């Protein structure tokens, strides 16, 4: 700053007018900020904010996709609360997500521990990471269709392989039974997404300064001490991030169960998730108003779950710090 002033005085003998000019220009310059964010704001208001409020409005109407929407108060919401199908969809979603998250995050976390282990010094991180990430890149539609064929109980390769190796004697109807269908969807989901969680967690570990690990090793800390006292606490923000994003994503699971079944959540509705119920209510049965209320119910459930996850994870770390 000082340097700058000197150079200006050197070039211009009259200092005062220049200072005034600069002050004015900075104020002018800041108006450019509005111009820079304007395109974003316009599109954001039209395509993101307006639809959210439009959905809210629709949830108080009996709109069926055509003609005029009639205001019917909160009756859509009272209907959601008493709707057995909605709550069974909620239960299904939680079941699928619960199994999925344990497998997905468990595997990703285990891999992170292995690859960050200072004693093993596992090589080939680049190759393994790429291989584990591969299923992420393929559209869920293709994955669902692939597994629908692979898991088919009569013609599917999965049963054939199991029979070939003598694991089972009789073919199992994986997608035809409620219990196994839920597990198949959860496992396929974990198979698709564990690589992504792993990369995010691993990036977090690599972001931790090497000095910590070296200092701890010099001080004679064992690997479990290092993991518990350095890696885990420093990884906590990223763990919270991964947990909450997979919670939000998991409660909205739609395309995988939608495409791996008949689109209605067969067998016995065990794969009918909340978003699938929302989709079918709106686009199959044209009950847009009620579907909008389902969307808001889903939103409240996700908001409560996220807040709960955040608080429990963040709260526990604070308690530890206090110790």
């Amino acid at each position, binding site marked *: 700053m000082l340097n700058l002033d000197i150079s200006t005085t050197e070039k211009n003998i009259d200092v005062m007018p220049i200072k005034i000019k600069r002050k004015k220009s900075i104020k002018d*310059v800041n108006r*450019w*900020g*509005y*111009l*820079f964010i304007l*395109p*974003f*704001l316009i*599109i954001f208001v039209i*395509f*993101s904010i307006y*639809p*959210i409020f*439009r*959905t809210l409005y*629709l949830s108080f109407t009996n709109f069926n996709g055509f003609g005029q929407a009639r205001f019917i108060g909160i009756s859509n919401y009272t209907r959601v609360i008493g709707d057995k199908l909605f709550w069974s969809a909620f239960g299904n979603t939680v079941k699928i997500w619960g199994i999925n998250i344990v497998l997905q995050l468990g595997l990703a976390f285990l891999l992170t521990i292995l690859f960050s282990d200072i004693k*093993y010094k*596992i090589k*080939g991180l680049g190759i*393994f*990471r*790429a*291989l*584990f*990430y*591969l*299923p992420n*890149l393929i*559209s*869920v*539609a*293709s994955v669902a*269709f*692939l597994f*629908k*064929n*692979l898991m088919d109980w009569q*013609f599917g390769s999965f049963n*054939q*392989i199991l029979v*070939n190796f003598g694991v089972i004697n009789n073919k199992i109807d994986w997608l035809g039974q409620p219990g196994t269908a839920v597990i198949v969807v959860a496992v396929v989901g974990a198979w698709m997404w564990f690589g*992504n969680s792993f*990369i*995010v967690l691993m*990036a*977090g570990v*690599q*972001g931790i300064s090497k000095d910590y690990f070296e200092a701890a090793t010099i001080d004679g800390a064992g690997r479990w001490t290092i993991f518990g006292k350095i890696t885990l606490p420093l990884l906590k923000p990223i763990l919270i991030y991964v947990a909450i994003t997979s919670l939000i994503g998991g409660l*909205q699971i*739609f*395309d995988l169960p939608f495409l791996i079944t008949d689109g209605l959540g067969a067998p016995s509705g065990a794969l009918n998730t909340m*978003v699938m119920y929302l989709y079918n209510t*709106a686009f199959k049965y044209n009950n*847009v108003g009620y*579907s909008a209320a389902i*969307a*808001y119910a*889903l*939103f409240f459930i996700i908001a409560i779950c996220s807040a709960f996850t955040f608080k429990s994870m963040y709260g526990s770390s604070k308690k530890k710090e206090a110790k």
Partner: protein
Amino acid sequence: MGTKVKKGIVYLALILLSVLCLGPFLVMLVNATRNSQAIISGFTLIPGSSLSANWALMAGYFNIFRGLGNSLFIAIFSTVLTGYFSALTAYGFAIYEFKGKNFIFTIILVLMMVPAQLGLLGFYDLINNMNLMDSYLPLIIPSIASPFIVFFLRQYLTSVLPMSIIEAARMDGASEIKMFHKIAIPIMMPGIATMSIGVFIGSWNNYLIPLVLLISPDKFTLPVMVGSLSASKDLTTNLGGTYLTVAISVLPVMLAFMFFSKYIISSISAGGVKE
């Protein structure tokens, strides 16, 4: 010795996991070359000879390359728009001090947390009223406003772009827009690239919105096209053709990944590594 054995077990487990990741694709490729009878009768890893027959069946049913092209078109435009406008917005937030800036940014952050499905019906209704059904515009234009990317790039920008450079350029008489294009964009490029990969993959794999908005089959994106297969009975009874269809939908991604995997992975990690 103990460590070596344990290390061996770890490597074995990792290789097994890799096989599990690749296995289904391998089975898919093999089955794409076999006819239905062969697939029903048993499993093998030896390719069959029915590739051309499967191809003929699939080609008679629909044009999957059309779907590929459609998906590519939408994904490229979405990615470019997201990259450019997110950088522009992030620059606006990072460099200038204007009234209401923090308020607007807070609202964007709050809405970032709102699940996408919340606005789905309102979005559909809006597009319907705008007479934009069956058009690509509602699939591309909204990508101009991507809150998460703006959030990321703003953080990125404040850590990599010193204000002194901007001030110096301003003293030299550079216009604000020019400074953005000539100084900020090149500096932000690694950050933009990082985010672009995620945006591209997200757009490429997007299923629900195109499913809801697209009506004519020749406009279907790849996922919608593959999804519509579930409904067609004659192709699902011909297993070879089905596997070939899925294989063709998957292969371009796998090929691209083979060439760019290093770049893709390091880009995904970069977001986390940046301190």
